[in-house]
């Protein structure tokens, strides 16, 4: 009945096995359950201390610890994209994997441009929608990352029969731009990205 799909019954990764920042944060930092017992509202007592100390939920420690954009953050941006033929996320299908995301620093000291490389693993080697998935990932990252990053989306070697052709398409700025002029393609991409919240 699902003959129109390339891979009707793909393996799904359990959500608790997907990499996430919450779980990789050290446990000491998380508030203990007893903290919930403490009153949560401001009283005159809080306000008696100096205004700087009381008001501040982050500003003093704010800028000193910059949280750099890392692979996990890139993964979080693209893992929630929906697969165009299954109501499942690219992360849970293993199409995008944390290990296949690499952030490369600027090549010369004078350049500010870093590169983010994402390798995509199609669910089957004959998946005809590989290009669309690649396009979706690319569009998502270009829109969501600051301009100092160059986004390089490729098909992981040996996972697709059409990798060479697809890589050429995704690497070609003009062709990507042309693809995004195509209404029906844009609609498919938008539907895929609609689940990124």
């Amino acid at each position: 009945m699902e003959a129109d799909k390339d891979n009707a019954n793909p393996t799904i990764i359990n959500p608790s096995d997907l990499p996430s920042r919450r779980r990789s944060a050290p446990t000491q930092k998380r508030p203990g359950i007893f903290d919930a017992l403490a009153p949560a509202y401001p009283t005159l007592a809080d306000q008696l201390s100096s205004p700087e100390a009381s008001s501040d939920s982050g500003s003093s420690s704010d800028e000193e610890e910059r949280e750099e954009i890392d692979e996990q953050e890139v993964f979080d941006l693209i893992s929630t994209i929906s697969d165009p033929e299954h109501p499942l996320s690219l992360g849970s299908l293993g199409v995008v994997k944390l290990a296949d995301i690499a952030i490369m620093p600027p090549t010369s000291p004078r350049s500010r441009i870093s590169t983010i490389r994402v390798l995509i693993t199609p669910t089957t080697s004959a998946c005809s929608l590989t290009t669309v998935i690649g396009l979706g990932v690319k569009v998502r990252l270009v829109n969501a990352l600051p301009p100092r990053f160059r986004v390089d989306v490729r098909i992981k070697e040996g996972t697709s029969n059409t990798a060479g052709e697809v890589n050429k398409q995704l690497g070609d700025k003009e062709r990507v731009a042309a693809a995004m002029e195509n209404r029906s393609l844009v609609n498919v991409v938008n539907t895929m990205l609609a689940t990124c919240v």
Partner: protein
Amino acid sequence: MSDIQLYLLEVDKDKAEAQQVAARSARRLESKEAKLIDLITSLEPYINDKGDANSRAKSVGFLADVLSALPPKILSGQERRLLCDFITGRIEGDLEGIGASARALIALEGLARWDTQSVQTVVRTFVDHANPLRQFKLQTERYAVVQLIDLLLAKYRDAMRKLHEDDAEFMPSFIAFFEGEKDPRNLMIIFSLLQVPMTEWDIRAHAQDLFDSVFNYFPITFKPPPDDPYGITAQDLKDRLRACIAANSDFAPYAFPQLLDKLDSTSMNTKRDVLQAIQACVVGYEAKTINLYSVTLWDALKFEILNVQEEDLAVESLKALTLIGAKFADSAEGPLNAYLRPIIKECNEHLEDAPTKQSEAAGRILYSVAMAGQTVADKLVKGILPTLFSLHSSSESLTKRRGLLEVFNQVLKAYADLEDVQPGIDTEAVQSFASEALDAMERALIHAPKAEVSFRLTSLNGLSCLVSVRKALSDAQVDRVVDAVTEIVLHERVEGHGDIRTPAIKALTEMAHSVPHAIRDRSVPAFMVEMPDCPSEKDVPGMVLEAFAQLSTEGQVFDTVAVRLKNKYNAARHQSAPVEYRRALLLALLYAFTFGAPAREDGIVRSSYYTEYAESLVTDVANGHREGSTLEVIGRIVNTLLNPQGVHFQTTVYSKNLDWMTAANNKDNADVSLTPFTLHYYAALRPEVTDAADIVPLLQTQASLALHRESHPAAAGSVLRLITLLLNKFANPKTLEPTLKATNLEVLTLLSQPVSPATANLALAITKALLLQGKTPTLTTTYLETLLAHLPTAPNPLARNFTTLLAPDNLLTKQNHCLISGLYKQKLFAHTLPPLTDAIRTADPEQKPYYLVALSGILRWLPYSILEPRLSSLIAPILQTLDLPAAADGAHEAKPSALTILESTLMHAPEMLEEHTASLVSRLLNCTTSTATDTTINNPWTLRAKALQCLALCPRQLKSEKVMPFRRQVVRRLLVCLDDGRRGVRAEAVRCRGAWLGLGEGEEEED
């Protein structure tokens, strides 16, 4: 003019007047002034008027109205019979006024019960001569007829059934009679009346026609008109139609094929209706009928579960599978086996390549079918588990094993849930697999690599399920499970990915429900080993304590947990353990009493807990053991246990403690460190327990503490809270002013001198007490006005602390017997809004921030519904609040509050903001700038994130022509935010930018 003439004149112009005329005729009949025969005769020229159909119909209407107005026992039996014959006779020759005829007959029936003969004649007349009903164009006419038939079917069951039994031709005419009806009001009655023949008569010969006559309406797509006075919803119609479809097993050959055909519909609503109808049929039809279709149904329903289109469709399909199983659960084995065979086969197939969507669906299917009853569940166990475990033992892949165990857990869960429905079910079938499952899951939990999170979680969950299935495991096996899970909670230290302590604690708590004794005998001692009497400061076992406290949520082990915590606290105290440890133990105890399940009597926590747990703590405090960090927790424990108790109990406690409390709160020699305890203690007491003479000195002491002693901010805060609490609870509103004067708490006097921060705070604390109490409105208003007047002259910290007037305080509650006026928020808002907005408009730039801060402080705690009516005057000040320089005192609290209101406004009343779009967008953008970009700006990251959230709402909520002009600017400015230093801000920036990028896309499509 005769009555009939008058009636004919009035009936089209004035219905009520016409009714009056008919009622008058009825009164004449009643008083014997007129005879029935005269009335009928007077009708004659009109009721037989060959040339004027309208007049004939109206004359029948007159007759109906007269009969409706007539009390019983006026007309003789003969007269009634005559009338009945007259009306039915008329119908045979003339169908005009059919509705009125029906009304007349309903009225006649209301006067006295009919005999079988009359009933049958009436029904036959309508069915034979007025068939089909749809020939009458007026809904009201058909409505009256339908009502009449409904009435007769309800009251004369035998007469109606005989009609059908005596004449094979009756049923077809009866069915045809209602055919083509479209009005929802009529259909509601028709669906209801047809259920009588459907369920009570032998209609085998006409099953298809009868079924089709209702199924033609399936699926109901009726949408009530916007101002429908009849209040009939599509759901009402659906419910009645479904009852018809499910009314008779003889419908099955027609119902199931057609329903299953419609299950392929592309409309989700149709599918919903089909699934509900199938469920109703399964419940309504006989088991032997369902037997014929069980496999067909399974074949169709399974697709909804294996390939979920909409989750609710899957849920409904699963429900149907349960119902089918339940239908066979108590009957002979054959039908049940026939039903389960394909299910078992299909599920076993999906197990082969677990874990997939399908294997997960198989788990859901097995759970639902097993929920049909223990006999069904047993058969599934025998059919599925051998395959499942042989696959499990032959596979090396952890992922596959996880998939298989997930399915197994669903089966276990069914047994555990069945036990709740039918306590004492036999779990023998599971027992034979329990040992194997236990070994596999215990091995997985203990030995699998810690990074295999889902595998270990599935095993943990499975072990918890195994324990919850009664008798599935032996006592020794239960102990093994409890030990393994306790071991994880206590000793496993995995940082980050792989940490499953939280679910392990939850599992332990769940197990405490089914096997409390094992938790008491195995886990609790293990926990105790990890809690020494006197650890060093660095080794306070905080995590262990947290886990232990959570066990208290299970009532059966609550007392064990609480007693152990108390004993441990006493031991720690005697051995002078570090104060952090003692505080942690007290917090654990407080957690247990707050979130746990202490025993209750008549809905309140047992008073003996106070005696056993709080009393000794209070004695320690009385004896001078007063450490700031534990004293507050002790106060809260006392409060939790004491506040629900009755007056009698509280009085005993109060008088026992009065002496030392009074001594400690002596005016000249007060112990300010005791205040946190005093605060919670007095919060618990009912006002009638105390004596006013005790309260006044206490207030005096606290007032002098508040004004004259330099103390730690926390202690000073407690003093102010205590003053608010005491005034609110114990000061008599009638003698409030003298009390305030006697205790030096009169606000006007306080503010008449140069205002220090301490005086300002004290004035706010006092005003808050009165405001909440709501009994002295004049005084409260005076105080509020005085405070407002002091805003520009005594700014610090008055403006910033204005917010405390409304800020919730978890001690000032009704539960703590405080007086809380229902409208205090509205009152404060109404009194302060006009002066504040006026002042903001006219104040000079230096003073303006104080007003803005005070205003946003108040708005911060107001529910949106209260401020909504005044939004128009608030938007401008709120936007100005966002311009406050970062250095302004209180700006840090004011801005988030302003953003929260803007967010609510964008959600609920975006039109209010449309004219301010430009200034809204630019201010929000300004709030997103971080120090990294511009060092003069200091927007905390939470503010930046919040501003981005608001900004993201703009393109969705405001009219596109209003926001479109800003699209380019916003999208460009947000590029900077995408590189913000904080991850949380970046995430919001991505969302926000997506919303603005998406702007206008919908319109392009239409081009």
